[in-house]
C-alpha cells in the first residue's frame, strides 16, 4: 500500500494486525512478515515476539505508551490508531512517545487519518501517515503545508516563536498598521 513518509508518497510493506471478533491478544496468530501488532498482543506474546525483528506495535487511543517502558527502544516502527479523527488522544500519545520516552524510530498515524489533520499530526511527532484508503493520497499530502509558521513548541519545534525570531514591540509594529 501507499503511505506518506518524509513528505513523499512511497510504497510500504508493513501490515497492521487488528484483532478480529473472537480473537484475544493471547490466541491471535501473528503472521510472518513485517507486522505492526496491537499493544495488547505485544504484552500477551512478548516472549515470542521478542525473537523477531520485524515487529512493530500500535496503540489504541486509550492506551498509554508509558506502559511500554524500556521496550520502546526495540522498535523501528510504532503506530497510533485514530478510531475517529476527532479523537485527539493520539496526539498526546505521540507527543509522549517522542518527548518523554524519547522514541526516535518511525511514528505512524493509522486509522481515520485525513488531510486536514496532517499538519497537527506532523507537529506532535508523526512522520509517517497512512491516509484513509478511500481518499486520494496526493491530496492528503497537501495538508502537511497548511501553515508556514507556528507559535508554540511541540515535538517538531523545540523553540517557541518568541525565542526563535525577533518580534517587534509596539513602536515598530505600529508602523505597519493602517
Amino acid at each position, binding site marked *: 500500500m501507499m503511505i506518506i513518509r518524509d513528505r513523499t508518497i512511497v510504497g510500504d510493506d508493513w501490515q497492521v494486525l487488528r484483532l478480529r471478533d473472537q480473537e484475544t491478544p493471547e490466541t491471535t496468530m501473528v503472521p510472518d512478515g513485517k507486522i505492526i501488532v496491537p499493544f495488547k498482543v505485544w504484552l500477551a506474546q512478548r516472549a515470542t515476539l521478542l525473537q523477531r525483528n520485524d515487529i512493530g506495535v500500535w496503540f489504541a487511543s486509550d492506551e*498509554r505508551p508509558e506502559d511500554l517502558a524500556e521496550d520502546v527502544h526495540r522498535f523501528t516502527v510504532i503506530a497510533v490508531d485514530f478510531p475517529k*479523527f*476527532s*479523537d*485527539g*488522544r493520539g*496526539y*498526546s*500519545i505521540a*507527543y509522549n512517545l517522542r*518527548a*518523554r520516552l524519547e522514541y526516535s524510530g518511525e511514528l505512524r498515524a493509522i486509522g481515520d487519518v*485525513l488531510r*486536514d*489533520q496532517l*499538519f*497537527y*499530526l506532523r*507537529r*506532535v511527532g508523526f512522520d509517517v501517515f497512512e491516509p484513509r484508503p478511500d481518499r486520494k493520497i496526493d*491530496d492528503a499530502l497537501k495538508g502537511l503545508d*497548511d*501553515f*508556514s*509558521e*507556528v*507559535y*508554540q*513548541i*511541540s515535538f517538531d519545534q*523545540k*523553540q*517557541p*516563536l*518568541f*525565542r526563535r*525570531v525577533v*518580534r*517587534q*514591540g*509596539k*513602536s515598530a*509594529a*505600529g508602523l*505597519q*498598521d*493602517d
Partner: protein
Amino acid sequence: MYCYDEYDQRMIDERVAQYRDQVRRRLSNELTETEFLPLRLQNGLYMQIHGYMLRIAVPYGLISSRQMRMFAHIARKYDRGYGHFTTRQNIQFNWLKLEETPDILADLASVQMHAIQTSGNCVRNITSDEFFGVAHDEIVDPRPYAEILRQWSTFHPEFAYLPRKFKIAISGAKEDRAAILAHDIGLSVTKNAQGEVGFRVFVGGGLGRTPIIGSEICEFLPWPHVLTYVESILRIYNQLGRRDNKHKARIKILVKALGIEEFKRLVEEDWADLKNGPGTLTREEVDRMSSFFTDPEYEVLAGNDSSLKAFMADNRNFSHWMKHNVRPHRVPGYAIVVLSVKKPGNAPGDVTHEQMDAVADLADRYSFGEMRITHKQNLVFADIKQTDLIALWHELTKLELASPNIGMLTDIISCPGAEFCTLANARSIPLSKLIAERFENLDFQYDIGEITLNISGCMNACGQHHIGNIGITGVEKKNHEEWYQISIGGAEGNDCSLGKILGPSLIFNQVPEAIDRILQVYLRERADEGERFIDVVRRIGHVPFKDHVYATDFPDELVKSDDKNTLIPAQHAVPFYSPRF
C-alpha cells in the same frame, strides 16, 4: 492594543486560504459533513436549521474602532444588519451563507481578526476583565498574558481535538470580573509578598448541566511558567477526560472524579519535564507584549470635573447615568463608561450596524479608538475624559445605548433561547423583555440596587443562570406552556457561588410575578439599603423567599400564558446558536 506583526498576519492569511479550500472541498463533496464539521467549528461556524452562524473572536474583549467598523460592514453585507455580543466577549452573526464565509474571514483578516477556535473541542477565546488597564483595584494588567496565551493556544497541534471545549479566563484585579472560577482554567495574575508576578491557578470550574466552582491547583505560579503549566493541565485532560459521554467530557468532571489532589499530582508530574524548558516565558517576550498595552496619551487633568455636578443637579437622567454607567478611572480626570446594550424592550447584546459604526466613531473621538465587550453583553469605553461625559451621554442617548441600568435588575444576561436555539426548552429573550418591562421603573430598580438576573433557555446555561443572584432556566415545554425554574443565591466575583433552586417550576407568565415576590422579601428583610440582595439571601437563606413565592396562588390571569406568550413552534425557529454552548 496588540498589533499583528508579519508572523501573526501570515498565519491568519494562511488560515483563510486553508479554510477557503476546505469550503471548496465541502461544496464539491470531497469532504463529508462529518469531516467538515470540526473544521468549520474551529473557524466559529455553526450550522443551524436554515443557515450558518459565525462567531468571531474578540480576544479578551478588546476591539478597535476599525475592527468595529468591520463588524458593521459584515452585518450589512453578509447578514441582516445586526450582530449579537455574547457572554464570552465575542460577536455572532446569524444569517450567513457558507459560500461567503471565506470572504468574511478574509475581510476580518484585513483588520487583524479571525474566528479561530471560537467553537469546537479546543481552547477557546481567552476572556478577561473588561476594566483591565484602567481599574483602581488592578494588581497586574492581565492583557500581555492574555495575548501570550492567545498566541500559544492558537493552532496548538496537540489540543485541537480535546474531549470537549476548553475555556480560559484571566483577571488581574482584586475583584474578579472575569468569572474565573466558572472556567476550565481560571488565572488570577497577582503579586506575592516579594512583589513578584505570578498566577493563582484554578481548574475545573464550569456551568452547564453540572455547575462546579473551580478548585485551586496552584497557589502561586511564577509568571515564566504559565504556558508550560497550562500545557500540562491540557495534556492530562486530553488523555484522561471522558470521551464516551458528551455531558461528562468537560475537565470539571475529570477533576471531580480524580479529586483535585490527584489531578494536581498528574499535572505536576507531567510539568516536571517541561518546567524551565524552552516553553518557559522570557522577560523579553512579556516586555514586548506589555509594550502594546501601555497607557494611551492621557492628558494631565485636574481631578474630578466640577461642571458635571451642576449638570447632574439639573438633569436627572444624566445623573442616573453617571451613577450607574460611569465608573472611576485610575487616572485623574478620566472615567470608564459602560454602554448599556440592555435597553428594556431590546434583545440583550444585539447591536445594529448603524450603532456599530456610530460607536466606532465615538471611540475615535473620545476613547483613543478602542472599546471592550463585556461578558454581560455590554460595551465599555475605558478612557473618557470627564469633560467629555456630557457630550458623550447625549450621543449615547441618541443611539439608545445609555439606559442607566448597569448592574441593575434590567441589565439582564440572556441566552438566545427557543426562538433561536434548537437545544432550548423555552424562550429566553421574550422573557427577559417581559421582566425588563415589568421592572422598568428606575426608582424601583434603584431601590432594589445591585442585583444580577440571568436567563438560560435550558440547562446548558449559556445565560450563566447558576451565577445570577436570580437565575432562570427553561426546563420543559408541556401543554403549550414553557416551564422555568428559578434559583437564587448565585454570584460571580470573588465570592462566587451557585444558585439554589427555589421550588417547583413556573410558567412563562408567572416568572415576573415570582421575581416580584422575591424582591418583596428582600425589601422586607434587608437591614438597610446598603445590604444587597445577595447579602440578604446569604444571611437569611432560601426559605423565606420560597415561602413567600409559593404561599399564595398566582393570580388567575397568570395560570395560563396568553396567546402572545405561547411558544413558537420549533420549525419556525430562527437559525441561531447559543453564545456559550
